[in-house]
């Protein structure tokens, strides 16, 4: 597969074109916004938390396929998970997205077994300037969870 095909896997384009959970939440939730001023990508998230668990979430934003697909995949990955699980997921995702080789938690023999669809974003590692696009949703999620923690 060429580097470009690896970057723009079908599942990424699918999430880009059909983002999951786009919108806002009505009930009690925390809200956070993030952007990359250099490129203009924007992302905002609503997260509803009950008993240490993310019961629902919704996203809004505009930007490149990588930033928006990463957000959409994140929605799929975090809803219904405990905060501890989400924290673990975030760490694994960040590690997957660092450029240093050898730290990737993903098991190449069992694709999807560690981070599910999110593993499709590995191709971004070959494009260092785009890593911040993939990170945006996750940084915004972290902001939201920090807020929730402070409020509790």
């Amino acid at each position, binding site marked *: 597969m*060429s580097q470009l095909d690896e970057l723009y896997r079908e599942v990424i384009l699918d999430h880009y074109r059909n983002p999951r959970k786009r919108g806002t939440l009505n009930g009690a939730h925390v809200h956070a916004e993030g952007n990359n001023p250099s490129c*203009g990508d924007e992302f905002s998230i609503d997260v509803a938390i009950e008993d240490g668990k993310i019961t629902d979430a919704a996203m809004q934003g505009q930007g490149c396929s990588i930033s928006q697909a990463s957000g959409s995949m994140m929605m799929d990955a975090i809803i219904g998970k405990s905060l501890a699980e989400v924290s673990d997921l975030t760490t694994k995702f960040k590690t997957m997205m660092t450029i240093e080789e050898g730290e990737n938690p993903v098991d190449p023999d069992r694709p999807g077994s560690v981070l599910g669809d999110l593993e499709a974003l590995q191709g971004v590692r070959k494009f260092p300037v785009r890593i911040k696009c993939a990170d945006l949703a996750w940084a915004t999620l972290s902001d939201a969870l920090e807020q929730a923690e402070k409020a509790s």
Partner: protein
Amino acid sequence: MTDLRSLRSDFPILSRSINGHPLVYLDSAATTQKPVAVLDAMEAYYRTSNANVHRGAHTLAAEATELYEGARSKVARFIGADPAQTVFTRGTTTAINHIAYGWGLDRLKQGDRILVTIAEHHANIVPWQIIARHTGAELVYLELTDDYTVDIGELESVIDDRIKIVSFSGMSNVTGALGPIDVLSQAARSVDALVVLDAAQLVPHQPVDVNQIDVDFLAFSSHKMLGPTGIGAMWGKPERLEEMEPTEGGGEMINIVERHTSTWAPVPHKFEAGTPPIAEAVGFGAAVDYLDAIGMDVIAAHERDLTTYALEKLSEIPDLRVYGPKDATKRGGAVSFELADIHAHDIATILDQDGIAVRAGHHCARPLMKYLGVPATARASFYLYNVPEEVDALAEGLLKARQIFGLS
């Protein structure tokens, strides 16, 4: 098409390959590549004449001063100006800040208005926002017509005694549209407003003579016209420069310094506090020599032909929308576009894999992006060293982007 192809060998970087492909550099609106003549002039200065300017009586100091002031004369002549009214600045941004602070801060007051256009670069918006906040003045915008040129039809309702400054670009770095210089300066004169021309994209690409236009200040950057970064110029009418306050104090810009007060050196030195970028000035001078030798009218014609060709090629690509005038006589060679639902960053990444450098994003013109209703555009921009084959490469790259995004 005017063939400037042989000039390409003057630009060492153009023989680079990027990701296994020959570099196709289509980002000259952001910054231009440098010819050997500029690189050599700067190196020669450091190797043989390096010293501080305007101080010291030794030979090198005299040589450096001569080179620095010589560069000023070249840059001034390039725009038909007097060197005594040509101030070296860090670039266009710094020049506009000088004007906003040095001229605007003391003169504007509550109820006054600064008129700009929605197509301005942040460099011609943010300094005015700051001055407006300090003085209570208000920033007002002219909008655009359907062909992305400034809507001068609005002028009548906007121009009144409240307008004290009219500041606009001679050529948009996003749409490529030429600014209606004469119409706006006349309108400004009718209410005695100051006229500031952001010529960052104009001076590099078209012949400009300050005697042929009626503006008070004009600003441009060396790095957008084959010269080094870190230097640019602010030209001003003599009486404006006289009445304007310096915004930076320090060495070089003073006449006499007492314990509590100082007097200023004459213009242009009044605005050049501290040790200036001397090698950069020398490089800037070499750049205008290079452009002069080719001729700005030749360069403008070449870019017009190339832009016409590019607009034609781009119009053949399905779902591609150009944000800028379709008429090549109303515009320069910065071509912004959107392709189907493919975000500009994705376009830039895909093109880069084939060695094609374009810009993606808001191009430091976020109010314009909002106005156009797009989050970002991709932009290809041309200069004297670009050739039609590079336009072909761009078109092919864009078709490839469509394929990768599953659009046939």
